[in-house]
């Protein structure tokens, strides 16, 4: 990390000091509010992605938000939280590129405030509540820096009415392997065929490494989830995804997978427009896309074909109770 911006308010926070100590050569730049840097105009996401800075801040205001409709894995009370903004990976389809001006990483160091709000929110419901991490970031990729997983799991261990999904593509699973599996935590991996990983998910662990991590977690007793989202169009979709699913099914005990979800590539129109401006040469954006309900996605007949093929493969190894389509 070359440059670290630090909000005045958290300059002496123990997490700030620990993170800065990890990068003794970084430029340390004090700032008033993270939004001054992160939301500044005239930033170029693509350009910054080559050399992102780290911003350490305190997240003010509301920390837990209801998930969008359709974003759940069987629970009735569903929330997401973002202890980080942005991701170390550079997936060409990622909606964060359309949502944020900046490719810098923001780490909110006031972890305890998040956890207290999670507890309050869970206690406000009689039925279990689900909390999704990894909506605006990768849950594990920066964990060696943030130590968020350990802090978080210590807490969830004491709140059995709260369920946590850690969504990731990362193989940084040491903090999970160093402790007993928790019944109320699911580690969910986004998976794509190896050639899509190579061409569109820049900087991410290979499919093989992700499957190894999943297998290791499964063997250690952790609940695992599989997220086939987004499915990307290809002329060779059928062959590509059939072989991919076979590879996944060979690697894992599918009957023990907690949940599987699946969704095709889709982006809000405004995000898509920004993505085209940033990456006009992206292969996935050269596919036939059309506007449906405010989202740029594949034509309905194409989507149906893609979903049906995947469903056919999945239904041979999982039960309907394990499956949650993404809308």
């Amino acid at each position, binding site marked *: 990390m*070359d*440059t670290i911006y630090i909000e005045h308010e958290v300059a002496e926070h123990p997490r700030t000091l620990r993170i800065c100590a990890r990068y003794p*050569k970084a*430029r340390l*730049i*004090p*700032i008033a509010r993270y939004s*001054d*840097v992160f939301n*500044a*105009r*005239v*930033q*170029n996401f*693509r*350009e*910054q992605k*080559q*050399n992102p*800075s780290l911003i350490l801040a305190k997240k003010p205001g509301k920390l837990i938000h209801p998930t969008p409709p359709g974003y759940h894995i069987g629970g009735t009370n569903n929330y997401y939280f973002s202890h980080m903004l942005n991701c170390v990976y550079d997936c060409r389809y990622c909606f964060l590129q359309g949502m944020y001006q900046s490719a810098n990483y923001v780490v909110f160091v006031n972890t305890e405030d998040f956890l207290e709000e999670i507890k309050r929110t869970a206690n406000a419901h009689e039925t279990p509540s689900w909390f999704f991490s990894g909506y605006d970031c990768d849950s594990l990729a920066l964990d060696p820096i943030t130590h968020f997983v350990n802090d978080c799991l210590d807490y969830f261990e004491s709140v059995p009415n709260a369920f946590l999904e850690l969504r990731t593509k990362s193989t940084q699973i040491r903090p999970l392997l160093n402790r007993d599996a928790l019944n109320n935590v699911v580690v969910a991996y986004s998976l794509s*065929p*190896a*050639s*899509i990983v*190579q*061409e569109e998910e820049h900087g991410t662990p290979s499919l093989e490494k992700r499957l190894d991590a999943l297998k290791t977690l499964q063997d250690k007793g952790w609940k695992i989830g599989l997220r086939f989202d987004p499915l*990307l*169009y*290809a*002329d*060779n979709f059928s*062959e*590509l995804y*059939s*072989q991919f699913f076979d590879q996944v099914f060979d690697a894992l005990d599918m009957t023990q997978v907690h949940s599987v979800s699946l969704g095709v590539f889709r982006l809000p129109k405004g995000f898509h427009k920004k993505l*085209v401006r940033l990456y*006009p*040469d*992206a*292969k996935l*954006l*050269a*596919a*036939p896309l059309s506007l449906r309900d405010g989202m740029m996605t594949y034509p309905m007949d194409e989507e149906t074909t893609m979903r049906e093929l995947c469903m056919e493969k999945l239904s041979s190894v999982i039960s309907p109770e394990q499956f949650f389509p993404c809308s």
Partner: protein
Amino acid sequence: MSSICIITALPAESRVFIDALKLKPILDHGWRLYGNSEHLLLQTGLGKLKACAATSALLHHRGDISAIVNAGIAGGLAPVGTTLLGHQIVDQGSGYNGYPHLPPQRVVQAIPTTIVETLEKPSSDYRAGVVFDMEASGIMSAAATYLSSGSMQFVKVISDNSETPLEQFKPSTVTPLVELALPTVLQLLEWFAQDSHAVQHQHDIKTYAEQVASCVHHTVNDSHQLLRLLQQYRTLAGELPEYSSLSHFENATALKQHLHRAIASMPLDYGKTS
């Protein structure tokens, strides 16, 4: 070919870069402009208004400029001759605030960074972490219309401080002081040049689209669609279509339909699954 522009205020600051890069005067629009095949130097005159006006006019006129480096002297607490990179640009008068996205340290050899506060008049009110200049905020606010925060950098050399205050400042020291910033500015130019290839790539497609649109009447919307179709075509085909294959269409709609069909017929595969 895209250009990278150095922006200075004073002739004594410009001289260092004109000599080092062998820049020649460009007589155009009454600017103090110098250049070679890759670089430009704009000498704005003293003060943020002149800096803002000249920067804005140049960037509006020269769409090929992909990055700027503002270089010059500044007052601050650091020893005279210290070179610093601006991490925040503040306009004292208006409160304008900007954050250039800093280059990697390997590019500029870990030189210290600072807040650059732009003043109307020189000041001796030196403060830790801040240097004073008279142009940076004008340049940044003008450039922000055309360039991203990573495509503008501000290199300042300390010319006066509490031990050598303004009253003792000698104009003859400007050139030798700015020479101290020359290595940093050259490193930034080289770094920007490496980054300008992607910009050039898109510039080529735009030029090509404009050529095609000049043969067949295109509305603004048609032109946007044509550009996008050409981008998709090149992504899938690896090259743009032959110009002659597009120049004979009677109208923009027929041309778009042709490109849509061509794109739809191209393979979009991922890897080999055998």
